[in-house]
């Protein structure tokens, strides 16, 4: 049982009090906020009792924004300033969007502004990036949660499609930052659903989560055992969802009614009607589509379920191909899957239900609300991460959806971390120079499965400079990829020959630089500059308080790992920080936090070590020896670890010599 204590604004909660946390499902069509109340995960409704927060943002000339149903009412009247399905633009450039939605230009009434990295939209309130637009939705979600809980959120878990790449994840994190949210974790949507379903049903075995929402499709294969959710493989398409089914009907309407080119208003009006018809067809054999256009024309058609299934057949087939691929990656057969959990509003379509049943040879599980299950799972995980233990603990092991690598000579991709690798992940590979005296190496980080770099997504480019003069092939440049628990990548390169080191750390952040975000933060704090400063100070204070609490908790648990002198140093650092928090010097607070972090580094190491020793101490030695001696080797499985092709494998030195670097 969890009890929340409400703290006055500005007053920080004492460490033993339950802290406020929420889960946010930031959907293409609908967003939801949920929290754990008295041990029960609950979706939070708006004042009118509605659980959904439509992911629609309308900008007004005065610079303010409307979000949700209120904005939705303006879809057809003010399409250019009313943005729907912004999630499909996250981390995407104008060219990606043009390509993805090429057939349906009519559907996008926006004026895109090409910007390096991510596309932006021109609205009456100025040029907006998808990150800012998403931040408006998150702010609305945050306001709803804080109104319900009566206090400030300590942090949230935000869900993202499992198939989101690094750019899209980074964009989501940036949006949260703009909305002033502390993100405990980005959680994959199907994994969130699995938590909600699994904990509720005490499920054990192999499960698949099929999540077809408004704009994205995910398939995840998980192994559920007591207290563990282990993702074995994931797949999908981050630009395939209910919107595409709408577009198919839209095209059908254009053809059947032989409509002339439409205004944005009329096009959006038809889109709205078409979606209603689609949803109607989930329960009926036929749906009327009647639209009175501004041009005076009237559309009056009837769409039957058969026709609908036919015109959307290859969309459904695309999902099934991803299902097969995920099963192959997990090295499983469909019949080994014990249950298929259906998530997302689009799984209500009968043709989807039939197709999934066919692919797995069993009826999918529909006993939970496909709209809510992701948000509920996120809330449950947020509650765990904030530290409000409910007695039950579980471990969540997730994977990255797409391989990460870098460009080598000839525009080829060299994979460093393969898709479906468990996260966090870290892997390093060595490269060398291509020319005598080469002083710099350019490193191009990409994500995707294709062999040619041009067919993968470019995440970041950076240069390692200051390589000392050497003959070609003599330098040893170690490139390290690290993926954290949010699935976010950082890359480091370092020249390692005797005595020389050069190091660069890159966080690929798509389109938005830290400076830009800072500027946006300032803008959003709007008129008063002071506001932004006060907010930054507040953030530092909260962060510092958090650090103190964490350190004190660690001391309470494990003080015996420290010598008296070490304890004294840590305590001094805490005391100093504690004093500074009361003041208003942000810089000093940050520096003191750094000091405390420094003083506790060794302590952290010892605690971690102790944890590992304890984890391993559980097993008896004889037990291990017996197991090791008697078991046969595992069935051989393909390994991507090494890839000779037809010719004898190159030696390591050959490999690095031929692997190349484009100089600058």
């Amino acid at each position, binding site marked *: 049982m969890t009890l929340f204590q409400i703290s006055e604004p500005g007053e920080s909660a004492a460490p033993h009090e339950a802290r406020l946390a929420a889960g946010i499902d930031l959907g293409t069509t609908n967003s939801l906020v949920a929290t754990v109340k008295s041990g029960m995960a609950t979706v939070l409704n708006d004042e009118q009792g509605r659980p959904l927060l439509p992911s629609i943002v309308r900008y007004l000339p005065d610079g303010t924004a409307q979000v949700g149903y209120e904005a939705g009412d303006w879809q057809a009247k003010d399409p250019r300033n009313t943005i729907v399905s912004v999630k499909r633009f996250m981390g995407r450039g104008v060219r990606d969007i043009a390509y993805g939605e090429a057939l349906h230009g009519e559907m996008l009434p926006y004026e895109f502004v090409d910007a390096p990295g991510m596309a932006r939209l021109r609205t009456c309130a100025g040029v907006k990036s998808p990150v800012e637009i998403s931040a408006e939705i998150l702010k609305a979600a945050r306001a709803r949660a804080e109104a319900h809980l009566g206090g400030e959120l300590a942090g949230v878990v935000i869900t993202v499609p499992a198939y989101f790449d690094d750019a899209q994840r980074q964009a989501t994190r940036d949006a949260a930052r703009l909305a002033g949210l502390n993100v405990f974790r980005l959680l994959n949507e199907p994994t969130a659903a699995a938590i909600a379903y699994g904990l509720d049903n005490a499920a054990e075995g192999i499960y698949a989560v099929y999540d077809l929402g408004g704009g994205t499709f995910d398939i995840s294969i998980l192994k559920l055992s007591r207290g563990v959710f282990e993702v074995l493989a994931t797949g999908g398409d981050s630009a395939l969802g209910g919107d595409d089914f709408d577009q198919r009907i839209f095209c059908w309407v254009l053809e059947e009614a032989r409509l002339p080119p439409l205004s944005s208003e009329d096009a959006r009006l038809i889109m709205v009607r078409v979606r209603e018809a689609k949803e109607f067809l989930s329960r009926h054999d036929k749906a009327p589509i009647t639209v009175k256009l501004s041009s005076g024309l009237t559309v009056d058609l009837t769409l039957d379920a058969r026709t609908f299934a036919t015109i959307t057949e290859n969309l459904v087939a695309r999902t099934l191909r991803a299902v097969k691929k995920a099963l192959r990656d997990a090295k499983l057969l469909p019949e080994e899957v014990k249950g298929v959990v259906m998530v997302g509003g689009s799984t209500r379509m009968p043709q989807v239900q039939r197709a999934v049943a066919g692919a797995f040879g069993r009826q999918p599980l529909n006993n939970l609300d496909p709209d809510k299950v992701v948000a509920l799972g996120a809330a449950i995980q947020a509650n765990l991460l904030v530290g409000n233990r409910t007695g039950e603990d579980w471990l969540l092991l997730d994977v990255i959806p797409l391989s990460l690598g870098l460009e080598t000579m000839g525009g080829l991709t060299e994979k460093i971390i393969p898709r479906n690798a468990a996260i966090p992940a870290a892997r390093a590979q060595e490269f060398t120079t291509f020319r005598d005296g080469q002083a710099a190496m350019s490193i191009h980080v990409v994500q995707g499965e294709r062999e040619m770099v041009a067919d993968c997504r470019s995440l970041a480019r950076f240069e390692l400079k200051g390589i000392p003069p050497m003959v070609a092939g003599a330098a040893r440049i170690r490139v390290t990829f690290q993926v954290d628990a949010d699935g976010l990548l950082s890359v480091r390169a370092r020249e390692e020959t005797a005595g020389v080191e050069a190091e660069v750390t890159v966080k690929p952040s798509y389109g938005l630089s830290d400076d830009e975000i800072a500027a946006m933060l300032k803008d959003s704090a709007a008129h008063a500059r002071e506001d932004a400063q006060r907010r930054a100070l507040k953030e530092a204070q909260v962060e510092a308080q958090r650090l103190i609490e964490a350190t004190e908790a660690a001391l309470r648990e494990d003080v015996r790992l420290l010598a008296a002198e070490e304890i004294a140093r840590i305590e001094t650092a805490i005391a100093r920080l504690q004093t500074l928090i009361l003041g208003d010097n942000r810089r000093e607070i940050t520096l003191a936090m750094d000091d405390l972090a420094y003083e506790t580094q060794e302590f952290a190491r010892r605690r971690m070590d102790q944890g590992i020793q304890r984890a*391993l101490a559980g097993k008896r030695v004889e037990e291990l020896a017996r197991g090791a001696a008697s078991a046969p080797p595992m069935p051989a499985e393909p390994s991507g670890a090494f890839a000779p092709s037809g010719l004898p494998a190159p030696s390591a030195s050959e490999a690095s010599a031929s692997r190349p670097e484009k100089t600058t």
Partner: protein
Amino acid sequence: MDLTCDFFTLFRLAPRFRLDVAALAARYLELQNSVHPDRFAQAGQAERRLSMQWAARVNEAYRTLKEPLARAQYLLRLAGRDPEAASGALAEDTDFLMQQMEWREEVRQARQERSMAALRELRQRLAREVQAQYEALAARFDDEHDLAAAVGQTRRLMFQEKLRAEIDDALAFLEDAEDAENAGA
């Protein structure tokens, strides 16, 4: 225990080729349970960073020990005999290379003829052969302690696993193409 200790020590397993997969998996969960970043979400920055590094290390160790080929390569590297670096070791093994070329030719043909049946048959044959190789490799490592022989064997398996992956890719490709046709796209 520190971040650089070897994977067998980390998992408290004897450095052998034959290993108990169930024990490995159980150990993996125990380790992740104590180092995973979700366990440190509210900890200080230093601990959060350490936890990420450890969790990544445990994942890497698990991946390496779980796959027999990766495990063999790792065992050899621990013994200072990197199979990838032992170039030339196979060059003399002309019989093996000839055989590999025949295999490859068969795969190419089956792919060209779009014959899933032929590919499946090849896959099965290869699986049997690979299985036998792994059993032999286990004997080299654990019974005979003949590392030189293990290097050669491992290099052969590297080829065969690569071939197996190619067959799998070809099969996947044909399956997808078939599905796309059936969907009448």
